[in-house]
């Protein structure tokens, strides 16, 4: 991986990883590697999920009951641990998404009002 490609990436905003993971799992069950690839691809290579954040997050979500996990064979016939979103997880995702929307709107309001206010 070239160094410049790294620099174009954005660090994930605190607390958004859970949301992204849950959203990715809404398309169907997936293993850790698949999730990280999916987020990278769907963000046009802008978002990079560190494994040091992803795996703790997955294990935390599992503990919270928002995802369930199962060992299965992957498409490439590899044994992998697949994560699946639960009903509870879906509710949590809806909640998170709503909060996220509000936050973005609020920040946007502040940012755009800045010029005229000053």
């Amino acid at each position, binding site marked *: 991986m070239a160094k410049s490609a790294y620099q174009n990436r954005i660090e994930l905003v605190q607390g958004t990883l859970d949301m992204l993971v849950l959203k990715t799992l809404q398309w169907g069950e997936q*293993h850790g590697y698949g999730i990280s690839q999916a987020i990278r691809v769907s963000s046009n290579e802008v978002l990079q999920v560190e494994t040091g954040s992803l*795996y703790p997050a997955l294990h935390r979500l599992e*503990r919270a009951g928002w995802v369930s996990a199962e060992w299965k064979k992957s498409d490439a016939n590899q044994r992998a641990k697949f994560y699946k979103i639960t009903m509870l997880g879906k509710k949590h995702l809806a909640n998170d998404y709503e909060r996220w929307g509000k936050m973005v709107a609020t920040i946007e309001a502040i940012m755009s009002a800045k010029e005229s206010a000053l």
Partner: protein
Amino acid sequence: MSLFDGRKKELNEEIESHLRMAAADRVAAGATPEDARRDAMREFGNVPLVADVTRERWGWLRMENLMQDLRYTWRTLKRERSFAAVAILILALGIGANVVVFSVVNTVLLRPLPFDHSQELAWIAGGGGVGGLSDVTYRTDSYEAFRDHNQSFRAVAGFVPFRAPDFKLTGYGEPKPVAGVWVMADFLQTLGIQPMLGRDFTAQEALPGSASVALLTYPYWKTQFHGDQSIVGRSITLDNMPVTVVGVLPPSFDFGSVFAPGTKTDLVRAIHPYDVRNYGHMFSLVGRLKPGVTPAQAQAEVSVLFPQMRDALKTQNWASDANTVITGLKEHVSGELRRSLIVLWCAVGMILLIVCVNLSNLLMARAAGRSKEFAMRTALGAGRGRIVRQLLTESLLLSSAGALLGLGLAFAAVMYLAHQGSLALPLLSEVRIDTASLLWTLAIAMVAAVLFGIVPAVRVSGINLQETLKDSGHGTSAGRKHQRIRSTLVVSEIALACVLLVGAGLLLRSFLKVMDVDLGFQPSHTAALPITFNATTDEQRGEVLHEMVRRVGDLPGVEATAFTDSLPLDRNRSWGLQAKGRTYPPDWNNDIYVSVVSPGFFRAMGIRIVAGRDFAWTDALKGTQVILINEATAKRDWPGQNPVGKIAVGVGRGETTVIGVVANVPESSVEKASTPQVYVPVTQSNDLADQLLIVRSSLPLDSLAPSVMSTLRSMNPGQPATTFRTLDSVVDHSTSPRRFFAVLVGIFAGLGLLLASLGIYGVISYAVTRQTQEIGVRMALGATRERVQMGVISRTLRMAVIGIAVGTVASFVVAKTISTMLFGTEPTDPVTFVGVAVLLLGVAFVAGYLPARRAARIDPMVALRSE
């Protein structure tokens, strides 16, 4: 932990599958399998670290880490036995001292008295609660009036605090003395004490003419009657009279430890106030407040009630009663000790601080040597938090081991203290290691672990990874910073030790000053022996005693002997005395301590006769009534006159003539100015508080005892087998609380000094070791050995001087706060301050000299070649 082995394996598999899939994708994109694998690994990052932080989400990891840390610590400490041993020993001393003092503080200050609902109990004392026993006690009539008219107390009961002559127990071998105390029939009930065996006194049993009854204390029952339960209901012979034992008191009730510290009680007998109606002030009173009534409310009531009763009853001798003070019983028992104990508590707190600083220093030194180990662990994926936790686990393990050992030491010390029956400190016999002490131990072990562990842990974990791995550490900035922190720690250690030493020095000087007080009598080589004698008439008493004094006085080795009914610094009683014909103001305090003595008493005691003459055996019962007074009385009642030949009233029968003046002798405390005293000849008074024979001897008193005893036996076969009580021990008993505190604070200060010197030595020694190369270079460049040695020593002394300066300033503040505990010593006492500074400098010099000598012996060639 096996619990997680399955899950750990699963996590590893999960990570492995991630890597395999990532590699497979890269192979599919055209990379070679080796490149693909390497690239996938690089993208994934630090595998063990990811596994570690992921495992932490499981929640149980903390526990697992702890076990791992403990195992690791155990291995490390096993490798460094001597370090562990020193650390644990230091901690044990610090924690042990804290546990002992806490146990005492807890018993004396914090824990309620060992009585039922003890917070309801109040101490009722006349004379403003101060002064001699006769001032703070009550007459029968005022007790009765108070008991019947007050609204605040559910019950008021009393005991006789005046020292009664020991009873004589017969029928169990040789006659034996028995220490008894007279209490009102409802005294135990008021305190909420239930006999362990048998029953309490009944109201009838205390009526005049009823059979005599007694309750045995638990220790006396165990030793004298071997715990025989059938003793209850049986009769024993006390002073040739049958007394029925109605019960045995519980082991938890130690009368002496609460009401008369430093004395033992064998049995309790019921007295009825009627019997002593005409004895004057007799009773110390304890009351049980009604629910919801505070001592302050009771105080408000008695402040009005007593003067009213005095006016209504028109009784004389009520002056002291009118000024009655109500205090909580707990406050009365331990109030005087509060300040001393808090000082002691602070002293051990400082010891603990010094211990922590010391340990911090040791750990820093050790950690510096281990920096590579930690850098390696960090490189292998240990987070900073994990390293800090690891180091804190080490300190926790050390402090736990120290606490355990310290608890053992404390247990022994507390056992020892609890059996110091002669120490005049209340509740001391109740001191023990209880749940509160154990919790306290746990708490200080934790606090200590964090205190001494946190600085090294944070310092070490913050070390720059690459620097440390690259550099061998000699003379690096991290090393310098280390050294600075360690020097600061040593300076604070010296400052703390300085404060402790100054405090201890001031208390010790006070103690020496107390020991130096002119007692007015010479206690050495003199002892008192409780005696009994057979005299049926007043005339006979003089003859019998004269004969006894003559016979004992003739024994070889006896220099002087005399009879007295009281000893200085022991329990006392007072009467009233006035100069005849002098008009006194209405509120005049005419209290005077009284002793009934035989001729020769002043010579036997070594009390100087200032004017006039001693009593003579010819001062007969029916002759002129004579007294001797002390200088304080002369000053009070005949100011500016020669009292010899003057007439006094109030003491004895009618008018008495002053035939002499003697030196002042302390009555209740060596530290208080002497108050008026009067001496009455035993030939003219039968009002004896006790019966003692004073013997002054040129021979060791023990060797004299058999011949004195056989002489007494030959005169009176009923003489109980008693032992000499040396006057030195009487003085010791009186000064024992001060000695107790001075010795304890002294021990703590010594401990502080030792720890501080260890700290100085450790730091300097370590610095020399680290700078071996540097010193080698300097010596190779021409520095002389003396110069190197001086350099090390001056560095040590610099730390010491800063520490002493800081400590001296702090000591001034501390000395001010303990100024009321000092006697004849200014809180700014220059001798103490200068002495402590010199002592600390000397110790610092020695502690620095040893490593300095080592530095001077460094062979430059060897030093340069190493590493």
